[in-house]
């Protein structure tokens, strides 16, 4: 976890001279304080300024009522079309929906509420979760997301892709590619805010206490580098020996097949995985525990290190939505990989269907043999 945080902080720090602009509601400094907390340089703006909206910047809209005018919608749309990034949080996300800049409708429960989200799929925005439990036994998503500034629970339309689910049909975090840019909307407030336990006396709940600052770190890091790897724990370094929720990998063994986490001589990091089939009808596979949130219509590179005594295959399935109840899935497509006596690094290109941004990958070995795997990554092709 610490290493992951370090990487993410590094990726923000690498863009220290840019370029995070914060436009928030006049009533709160929660976002600004959070950005200071996570060492992310930023510039506060009080009014949208076309000259400040350059494509390599990230515009953060937050607070209950960010000071935006109706006409600012066109400015933001133009900024997005030219490659800018918008991170709209809470009331900022509500503004984006009201300005019809994002393909979702909002539902707004009254009061300040805490949401225990679940992953609609793996995405860099959620890397590092589930983490140390601030809430008993919470191991399935980003916990303790305070919704403090009247942000939306979103019903995503076909152009928006949900990353975090609130339950029911509602998304707590979703992104949409708009022109060359990306808008990432988060309904709750990972930075924290005023929590109203009574009608008139707010209690301050900070993202550092709720353990949701990391979501903010991740969001900014991803918007800076949307081509980054989408698969968590790609090298099996973290919690490999624990349960699937923690390791993010699920191993399925049939007919005396075996698996083992190897802790020496890994081609990358310290750990790699071995799958072994001992009978002709054995089958061993490892799959991402949850679907991966990719991008419809885009091409991705699936990269992996492997060695195997016999041929094996990748199975890749695509889904229209994260919900098991509503999604349509394609039949898993096999991609054969030849045997190799030594470690190889290979790549395959995956084309994501326009209407199916979620995908599942499964490495499978049938019959007698041994397959070793490490450093499985999925990155968008430039």
């Amino acid at each position, binding site marked *: 976890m610490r290493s992951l945080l370090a990487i993410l902080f590094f990726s923000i720090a690498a863009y220290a001279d840019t370029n995070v602009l914060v436009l928030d509601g006049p009533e709160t400094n929660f976002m600004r304080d959070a950005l200071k907390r996570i060492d992310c340089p930023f510039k506060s703006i009080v009014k949208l300024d076309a000259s400040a909206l350059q494509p390599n910047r990230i515009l953060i809209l937050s607070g209950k009522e960010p000071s935006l005018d109706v006409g600012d919608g066109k400015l933001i749309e133009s900024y997005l079309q030219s490659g800018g990034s918008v991170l709209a949080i809470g009331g900022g996300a509500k503004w984006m929906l009201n300005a019809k800049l994002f393909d979702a409708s909002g*539902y*707004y*429960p*009254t*009061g*300040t*509420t*805490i*949401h*225990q*989200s*679940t992953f609609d799929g793996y995405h860099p925005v959620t890397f590092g979760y589930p983490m140390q439990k601030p809430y008993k*036994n919470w*191991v*399935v998503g980003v916990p303790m997301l*305070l*919704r403090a500034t009247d942000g939306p629970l979103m019903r995503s339309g076909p152009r928006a892709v949900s990353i975090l689910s*609130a*339950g*029911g*049909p*509602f998304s707590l975090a979703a992104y949409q590619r708009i022109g060359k840019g990306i808008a990432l909307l988060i309904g709750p407030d990972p930075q924290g805010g005023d*929590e*109203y*336990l*009574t*009608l008139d006396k707010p209690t301050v709940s900070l993202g550092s206490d709720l353990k949701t600052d990391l979501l903010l770190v991740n969001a900014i890091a991803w918007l800076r580098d949307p081509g980054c790897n989408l698969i968590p724990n790609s090298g099996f370094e973290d919690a490999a020996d624990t349960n*699937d*929720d923690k390791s993010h990998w*699920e191993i*399925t063994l*049939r007919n005396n097949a075996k698996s083992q986490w190897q802790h020496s001589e890994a081609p990358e990091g310290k750990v790699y995985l071995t799958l072994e089939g001992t009978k002709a009808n054995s089958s061993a*596979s490892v*799959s991402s*525990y*949850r*679907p991966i949130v990719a991008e419809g219509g885009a091409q991705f590179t699936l990269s992996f290190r492997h060695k195997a005594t016999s041929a094996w295959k990748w*199975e890749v*399935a695509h889904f229209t939505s994260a919900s*098991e109840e509503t999604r349509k*899935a394609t039949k*898993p497509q096999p991609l054969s990989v030849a045997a190799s006596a030594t470690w190889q690094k290979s790549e395959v290109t995956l084309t994501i269907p326009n209407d199916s941004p979620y995908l*599942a990958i*499964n490495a*499978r070995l049938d019959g007698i043999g041994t397959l070793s795997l490490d450093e499985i990554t999925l990155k968008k092709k430039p």
Partner: protein
Amino acid sequence: MNNHPSLFMRTSVWLVFLAATGALADTPLSTQPSALLTESLSLAKKRTDHGDVRTTAALRLGATMRLAGMKDAAKQALEECIALNEKDSDPDYEREEVRIELAREFLLLGMVERARSILKESKEGHYDYDLIGQEVFARTALEMGDAAEAESAIHTALELAQRSGRKLTKTGNAMLCSLGRLALGLKKPELARQAESVVKDEIWKSVMLGDQAVALAEQGHAEEAMRVAARANDQHMAVLAQGRVAAAILERKESADAVVAALRQTAAKIKSAEARDFALQVATGKLAAAGGSALAVQIAAEIQNPVTRLLALCPIVETLSFDGLMSALIACPAEDQPVLAEVLTSACGAKGLMAQSLSAAATVHQGWPRVRALCDAARRLMKTKSRDDAVKLLGAANVELSQITDAGWHCHARTQLALAAHQLGDEAMEEQQLKEACSEALRLDGVEDRRTALSQAVEAALLCGRKELAARTLTEALRSNPSTAVRDTLVPMLIDAGQPDAALAEVTNSPLKDDFGRRFVVYRLAKAGRLSDAVDLAKKIPSRFQSEALADIALAQLKLPKPAVRGTRVVGLSLHGGWSSWVGQLEHMGVAWEVMPFSLPYLEGADGLAARYTMLGYPGAGDHHYQVSAAGEEHVRDYLREGGGMFGICAGQLLATGHQTGHQYMPSDFYYMRGQGAHQVQVAHQHPAGLGLPPVVIINRMNGDFMLPRPGCDVLGWYDKQNICAAVSTSRYGFGRVAVSSPHPESGRELEHVDRVFIALTFWTMEGAP
């Protein structure tokens, strides 16, 4: 928590399931209870699942064997359940709950020593459950007529409480209070005083002093009763104690003036006007129920809030000037007036005041609320006076139907009219409304509303004994290729409608999606005498539930025990879950309660529940459906249809909305939204239970569902300002009443508005009035 099982696992799971069911297909089974239960035990031993699902099933199996007279087998099954419970149950509180129920079962088997020893086997740190265990043991012993064992258990509990030296929790206080009551019932006042001496909490101590005072008053020791009641240091409880003492004195046809004078003095010391008003309202109710109308009026006059005062006066409306009451109503806030008028309409009906009831109804919101008020008034009037007057009220309700524009609500209103007409014996009205309701339900668009309307209309037809109409409606509905949800709801009803073959054909052609739905069909087939069919169908149920389905078939053939005759019915709080915050609120309301073994709905059936309980309370917990079970759910359903009450909070809400079982007592769909927090619930001032509440009440939610109300779901509070998702609601189910709350209104501090939500919902569910 695996919400996304591997995509590549499902095929194999399905194959395992098919293999398991196929392996049983050739095994002949007798339909005799003993053979079914033996087979059930054999299957239970092969179960590989874990946790409360398996443990509670084992408990019920042993209990069913006891009911079937298979004492040795029951003992063996229960001993195995003990082992399972130690190994499987998690979290700890579920283990302790099962342990208490196991001890009760052994006691009912006559194995007193084994029962005692089980209660001694608690884990360290489960002090509350030790006390609950002794309380349940004592009460069960008393019901079995074994006063000595009951007394012994009270002594044991007192020793436990004194020995531990720990500060009693809410649960501990409540249990000692209940044990004190049992002691008073055993005519052991010294024992009750001992229990009271252990309790240090002023509120609970005051409650217990009140109990002792009432016992004295009932025995004719009025002065001593007043002295004891005066020792209650909590002023709210002191007012209640004095009110109860006054009522007991009135029951003896003696003067209660002195007690009432003392009560007024005590009430005057309560600083919060709202708390004082509430205490006086409850005391007024006690006096009114005991026939002390004049004294009740005196006390009510001291209530400051005009809404609360009017509510307090409604039960004695016959002694007051109706015009005066209407004037008082007009002095209330405008938003409360139509709802107060609804309460007054019902109150006038209850006292046989037809003309006044009609007059008050004219101020009720038009449409459904007015139909609701008039139907309720007609039912109440029927109990006290002439049928003709009641029919006139229904006639007015019938006219009001034209004001309801929503098709689903129109259909719902017709079913309520039909049920009221049935109770009045107005066959023509009943038939007309039922036919129209069924017809309207079949024409409804929208899957959810159609499902709700069809199930309500058919249920109403069945309750009115019109099986042919029910069967026709079901057949037509199922012919139109309904959605899975509609089908899962309607198919089991075919059996109630006298069409078991049609139900069998449906499930043979295409199995119901829901496991509970299938088990409902099995149980209803067995109840209908179609035992072989029930067994055949049970074999097709997923293997882990087959054992339970077979036990259900056995249970369906057994004569369920009738509970010991009791003086008054009480609120039954399911042992499973977090009821400790309920009991303090119920005491504030002056409402009698007891902890209900979670297996009791299964074991005693609807008649047992009706004999014991005015209302079932299902609190927050992990889930309830495995504790209640499929047959238990069927019994709860029957209990509610026949006029029972149910209040579910959080996990209890899931049970009431059919989240896991499909039995939808509250007509609403839901979104499961994990999360906690202080929601600002927007109060809808459209229902009597919302009277006197401010526009917004903050209530804490702990993962409760967001409800999507369907026709028949009267929303009391919304989670939003757009009236999309409901937080708190009420409904009628058959002749019964159901209230649910997604957030936790029971967990507020003393008499905040959030408490008033709990109080209003409980009173409404018990009595139909806030």
